[in-house]
């Protein structure tokens, strides 16, 4: 895929790469790892393969070979050769096809997975007759959180605020973290903390009383109170929310967090298996 027009923040992203955090090197990776993996599953790639992550305005790309492509995550009104194409559905494209995104409809980040069709000459754009709608896996419910070590640093009334009020996402949110906007939360304790490890999803309480949620490109350590943590299974959903949107938090428990994560991972593995099977049958039918 050749880039013919640069997007605002196009980058190739994989799943987070762990093992170097003791050297201060964060795991990074795509923001919405669910859509990233779903795109890979739809074209029969390994789930952890690198895919193109784009924000709006997104770049314009030209396919140089016959390719199987899947577009997942945000709806930016993706077009192939000026024809609108569906999300979450594998598409075969001939060499020379142009991928462009016309307008931001919903979501913040789009993921484009590709697989070169080495022994197949595609002559026209062909949308494969199966799709995966992940609505049953991703809900629109409040973002689920677990209490953090410093949950008690918040006064009871502020704990109540955190669990009942809308939080707007600040315009300065990025891949490192989301700043949230609310009336400043009140702290019950001002004990300064020693820096220690943080993870994606850690919700820190800034001295100003505002909250920041650490996202994919977070630093490895931090010194602000960790009042709560977004569960891993809800991070992809949060990654698709952006400035001008608001969200609510609800408390959950570790068992639910673990169950939801396994449910998502099993779903992705099933999609991959089903798509690999369908792709092999489809090739067989047409040769």
């Amino acid at each position: 895929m050749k880039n013919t027009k640069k997007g605002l923040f196009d980058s190739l992203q994989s799943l987070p790469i762990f093992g170097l955090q003791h050297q201060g090197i964060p795991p990074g990776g795509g923001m919405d790892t669910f859509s990233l993996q779903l795109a890979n599953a739809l074209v029969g790639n390994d789930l952890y393969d690198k895919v193109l992550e784009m924000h709006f305005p997104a770049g314009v790309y030209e396919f140089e070979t016959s390719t199987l492509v899947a577009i997942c995550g945000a709806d930016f009104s993706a077009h192939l050769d000026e024809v609108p194409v569906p999300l979450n559905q594998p598409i075969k494209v001939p060499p020379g096809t142009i991928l462009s995104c016309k307008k931001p409809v919903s979501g913040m980040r789009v993921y484009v997975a590709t697989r070169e069709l080495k022994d197949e000459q595609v002559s026209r754009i062909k949308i494969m007759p199966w799709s995966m709608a992940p609505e049953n896996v991703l809900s629109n419910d409040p973002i689920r959180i677990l209490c953090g070590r410093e949950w008690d640093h918040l006064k009871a009334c502020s704990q109540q605020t955190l669990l009942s009020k809308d939080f707007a996402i600040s315009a300065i949110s990025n891949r490192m973290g989301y700043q949230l906007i609310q009336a400043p939360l009140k702290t019950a304790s001002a004990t300064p903390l020693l820096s220690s490890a943080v993870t994606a999803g850690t919700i820190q309480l800034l001295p100003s009383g505002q909250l920041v949620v650490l996202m994919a490109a977070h630093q490895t350590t931090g010194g602000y109170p960790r009042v709560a943590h977004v569960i891993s299974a809800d991070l992809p959903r949060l990654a698709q929310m952006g400035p001008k949107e608001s969200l609510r938090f609800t408390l959950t428990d570790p068992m639910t967090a673990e169950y939801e994560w396994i449910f998502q991972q099993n779903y992705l593995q099933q999609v991959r298996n089903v798509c690999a099977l369908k792709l092999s049958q489809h090739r067989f039918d047409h040769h």
Partner: protein
Amino acid sequence: MKNQIYELGDTAITIEFGNEISMEFHEEVIRRFYQFQTNPLPGTLDLIPAYTSLTIVFDLGYVASRFQGLAGMKTLVEEKLAEPFSAVTPEGRIHKIPCLYEGPDLAAVAVACGLSESEIIRIHSEKEYQVYFLGFLPGFAYMGTTDERITVARKETPVTIQPGDIGLAGNQTGIYPSTSPGGWQIIGRTTTDLLPDGLPLFQVGDRVRFIPQRS
């Protein structure tokens, strides 16, 4: 203080060995870091040492499907901490870092501390510092503790800091490995490459001495 073991979200467990910066607590962090590195618990993705804590990051899917999740791992961590351990703790390396004490904030630090610039330089360079842990930026080492006479507050507004800049913040000192916004008071700089071949020069447990250079 008894070890505190707690869950950090749904993917990690933190062990806190103490609540203040001290070599006693930190040596325990280093020992346990090497223990869990030599004999990792199942599903371990990362070990993150800090001043007084060690965090183990797990593969959530793996530990949830095989080990009753983080609750199960917490029990395993407790068992490991109770066992005597035989992991070899490497002797940290000593780094001599040439330092040109001409940082933009040297004069302001001297005023804030009520000392002359040359006294700041002498006090900063006569002590050997411990690399407590790496964080903030790839290869950024949190070192300390500095002499209390040169304790300074961070800047209120971060500015752009260049690679090799040497700063002070509280009773910590550190060198920026790459360009970054930062609030530390910059008193000097070094030409030493902190990311040779892209890998951090410093490791947790190393010690550092600053050697004053003439311009």
